[in-house]
């Protein structure tokens, strides 16, 4: 595996962010920051606004108040550079039912805009989908579709990972491989923001925790 350093002075800063849905304040004046080589673990019960917060962090939703900056520049202003450095994995996998595993992976990599870190084949082997290269998405299980989405973590050389429940639908072996990849990413100067109902503990990784709700 190539271990490239990602640069070590990037920072995602969240200032006083609020968001309300139907007059109900989901996120109330929240501030925090994540720097290179750090992991932020967002905890909270169902409906506490974890997904909303991640969607705001990735720029999919706009906060009602407050500002999010990437290396000092608002993410709204510098969208192209921010998007280049961002890998977002949401609840839905983005896997097309009509396309094969390989076609799905190749499309993700054309969208990412940066040269791939690893070949598509290496990514398929990493998630253990050998033999399924030509199977259309609709013939794969939910766990296998999640694995296709996870190949982006191996292929995209982005710095900031925003992951919503990355372990959902995965078996123990894949969770282990994923934890290793998280550690490698953070050790190389990457930033990691994730939510999970699963307890994870990465050795010697600078972890901060944020409790919602």
């Amino acid at each position, binding site marked *: 595996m190539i271990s490239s350093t990602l640069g070590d002075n990037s920072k995602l800063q969240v200032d006083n962010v609020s968001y309300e849905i139907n007059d109900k304040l989901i996120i109330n004046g929240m501030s925090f920051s994540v720097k290179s080589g750090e992991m932020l673990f967002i905890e909270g019960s169902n409906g506490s606004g974890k997904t909303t917060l991640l*969607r705001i962090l*990735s*720029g*999919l*939703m*706009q906060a009602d108040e407050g500002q999010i900056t990437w290396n000092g520049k608002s993410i709204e202003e510098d*969208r*192209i*550079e921010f*998007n*280049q450095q*961002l890998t*977002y994995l*949401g*609840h*839905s*996998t*983005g*896997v*097309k*039912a*009509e*396309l094969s595993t390989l*076609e799905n992976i*190749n*499309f*993700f*990599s*054309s*969208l*990412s*805009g940066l040269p791939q870190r690893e070949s*598509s084949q290496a990514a398929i082997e990493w998630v253990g989908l050998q033999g399924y290269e030509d199977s*259309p998405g609709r013939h794969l299980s939910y766990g296998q579709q999640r694995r296709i989405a996870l190949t982006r973590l191996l292929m995209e050389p982005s710095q900031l990972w925003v992951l919503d429940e990355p372990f959902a639908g995965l078996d123990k072996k894949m969770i282990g491989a994923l934890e290793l990849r998280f550690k490698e990413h953070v050790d190389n100067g990457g930033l990691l923001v994730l939510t999970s109902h699963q307890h994870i503990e990465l050795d010697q990784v600078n972890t901060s925790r944020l409790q919602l709700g």
Partner: protein
Amino acid sequence: MNTRNPFIAMLFRDLRIAFRQRAEIMLPVIFFVVVVSLFPLAISPDPTVLKSIGPGVIWIAALLSILLSLQSLFRSDFSDGSMEQILLSPFPGSLLMLARIVAQWCVTGLPLIIISPLLGLLLHLDAHVIWVLFISLLLGVPYLNMVGAIGVALTIGLRQAGALLSLLVLPLYVPVLIFGSNAVISASNDLPYNGQLLWLAALLVIATTLSPFVISFALRVSCSYR
């Protein structure tokens, strides 16, 4: 095919998906053929009658068939999460959306334009009138695709968007319907029809330059209120 060019990648992805759902992509063109061929049965097989209603019938059928095809545009991308990835890509959303509309036009608009001369023959239109019909559809149908896509992008987040979509889009379709069918009627009456065709071309230029930006903005807004 693995390409680094996002426009080409998007275009090929959409075409590939469309050709793997053959039954669905045939629907608009079958609808178009069926509607037009029912008119001689229901109204009159008399060539003089068909000649006079033909241009309008073909244009209305084309318009409704594009409207029908809009329902599925962007829907699966929205539900399976690929729209999020498209919006978060570092490439301009307008460029990717232009690729999507070109793909959509290839599978819905283009077959309809290609088959229109045959339907012109069915309705006893003269050869030079069929030629004008063909040109008017060639200029007008892409406009229908683009403006329709704006309507879809605005309403995609809503649960029952069908009726609202027609209400939003039909008023914007009316000018093209008027210029398009009027060009063909003028041609069949040996009157000049260049003006109408130029109007269609002008509308097409405006739609091509502006709609990708509007669509990408509208999708961003729809996606943020999910």
